[in-house]
């Protein structure tokens, strides 16, 4: 492992410019900028469409002949007002927030201990426990939700936020543990050894030495876990019945979509507002997010 890390740092500090300066501008436009523009337009168009639909007056929504569909004349806040004041939407937002924060905090706490134990206490069988954690990460929710529904029901937490707070860690803990193991591995052993020599207990080492050094890892894992729980759908759909306990994705889909007449404006406003919190969080912590995503793959 140390050898590969060395080569990695070497290649990262390799300040060679690359050879792209050899390509002349017309070629760069055709080979790079044009495809990139197409990619970006395609990847972002649904968001644009979502946003523009959310502020379009109903009269323009389907009248493509008199108004250009790509633009809006006289934007309206009616859909958003309807969403915020005449539906349970604010309640769903609050539920999603509570569930995501609780599940994330719970998973982070459990994962810190687990990752530290696997990576640094090195008890007998710690390597196989690490492998098991990785395998647990690969168990998808879509094969677990039926038996979990039975279990949740037996525990008497069916149709409550607790059902989600307790089941989300099933996919969060393996992920966070795996990520934090990688971070703990990069903290030098010597720091721990000198703390041990100074008489620190394992607990003190974890709290005073390891955790402060692993803050970037904690942020990465936390952000990613929060996003995963915010986006979770199948458990929330299965375990929650009553409108006041629904999360945003489930609420928007099951309560704002009714009958054959879709209120596209408020539906898109709901989608937009449900996405905003994670997008804002993401925009502040892009690098942490990317490092946790690629870290989970690379480790």
């Amino acid at each position, binding site marked *: 492992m140390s050898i590969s890390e060395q080569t990695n740092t070497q290649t990262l500090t390799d300040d060679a410019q690359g050879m792209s300066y050899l390509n002349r501008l017309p070629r760069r436009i055709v080979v790079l900028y044009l495809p990139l523009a197409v990619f970006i337009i395609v990847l972002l168009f649904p968001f644009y469409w979502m946003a523009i639909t959310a502020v379009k007056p109903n009269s323009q929504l389907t009248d493509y002949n008199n108004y250009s569909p790509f633009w809006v004349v006289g934007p309206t806040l009616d859909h958003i007002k309807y969403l915020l004041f005449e539906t349970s939407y604010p309640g769903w937002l609050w539920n999603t927030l509570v569930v995501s924060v609780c599940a994330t905090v719970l998973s982070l706490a459990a994962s810190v201990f687990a990752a*530290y134990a696997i990576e640094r206490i090195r008890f007998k069988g710690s390597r196989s426990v690490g492998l098991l954690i990785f395998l*647990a990460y690969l168990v998808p929710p879509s094969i677990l939700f039926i038996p979990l529904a039975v279990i949740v029901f037996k525990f008497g937490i069916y149709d409550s936020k607790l059902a989600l707070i307790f089941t989300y860690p099933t996919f969060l803990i393996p992920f966070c543990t795996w990520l934090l193991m990688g971070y703990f591995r990069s903290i030098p052993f010597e720091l721990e050894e000198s703390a041990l020599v100074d008489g620190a207990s394992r607990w003190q080492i974890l709290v005073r030495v390891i955790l402060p050094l692993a803050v970037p890892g904690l942020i990465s894992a936390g952000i990613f876990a929060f996003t995963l729980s915010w986006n979770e759908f199948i458990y929330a759909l299965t375990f929650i019945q009553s409108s006041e306990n629904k999360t945003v994705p489930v609420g928007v889909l099951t309560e704002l979509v009714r009958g054959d007449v879709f209120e596209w404006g408020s539906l898109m406003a709901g989608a937009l507002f449900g996405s905003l919190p994670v997008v804002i969080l993401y925009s502040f912590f892009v690098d942490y997010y990317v490092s946790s995503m690629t870290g989970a793959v690379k480790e």
Partner: protein
Amino acid sequence: MTATTKPPSALVALTRNNTFLGFMFLLPAAVFLLCFLTYPLGLGVWLGFTDAKIGRDGVFIGLDNYKALASDSVFWMAVYNTVLYTFIASVLKFGLGLWLALILNENLPFKSFFRAIILLPWVVPTVLSALAFWWIYDAQFSILSWSLIKLGLIDTPINFLGDPNNARASVIAANVWRGIPFVAISLLAGLQTIPQSLHEAASLDGATGWQRFRFITLPMLTPIIAVVMTFSVLFTFTDFQLIYVLTKGGPVNATHLMATLSFQRGIPGGQLGEGAAIAVAMIPFLLASILFSFFGLQRRKWQQGGQD
């Protein structure tokens, strides 16, 4: 030190025992995973052998659920759809994702900005972006149909979600849209660890751009490709949300995946046993992709000169 030092008490001795300490530290995570992951996994397998319904514990009925599924054309349609969906979507995600990663690996202005906005489809909740696709795929007011008509390419609006093959293509397109950022950004991270000097040396030796890609980039990237694609296949194979939002398995069960069929039979249909059996039938495929990932990882360590 004198001999009067007291021997450590039993408690202190225990806290110095690594096995005990490790066990205590692992306890919270282990309790969660055993209760809500391992136990349900076992329960799911058991439920597959019972005729459990919602509100009623089932009795053991052996392989009856699986026998019923084997002669169920809807189930086989779901298997066919799942394999097709996974295969086509993964190939497209890989091809387009690698292409985007190669573009982003060049010297571009505002590179980190592009990288940040490209990940948006992956960050936003799938259900919510799927709703946007639902509106884009609307039978009457689809913006795609409208644009194509204006361009003179088609005469009547495309029935995106109403025709089985169109519906399959539409959900695959939405899945690819959501999956490209993950593949691209992960592969980009891999590309950035390939030293530029290799490319320079190769081009001094007269290698063309294609040869440099084929004999430097691709081999150096293979280990990461293996892992990224395993994850991608895993997520695609077990996908639920997109289908549930866009088609709910329709028209006439033509776009059911195994996950959505399992949900439909198990939860609204109430046949927990049958739903669980469908979910269990997904496991062999998952094992296949996990093994694939495992050997991919092994090979990577060996390539980098690490041990084990």
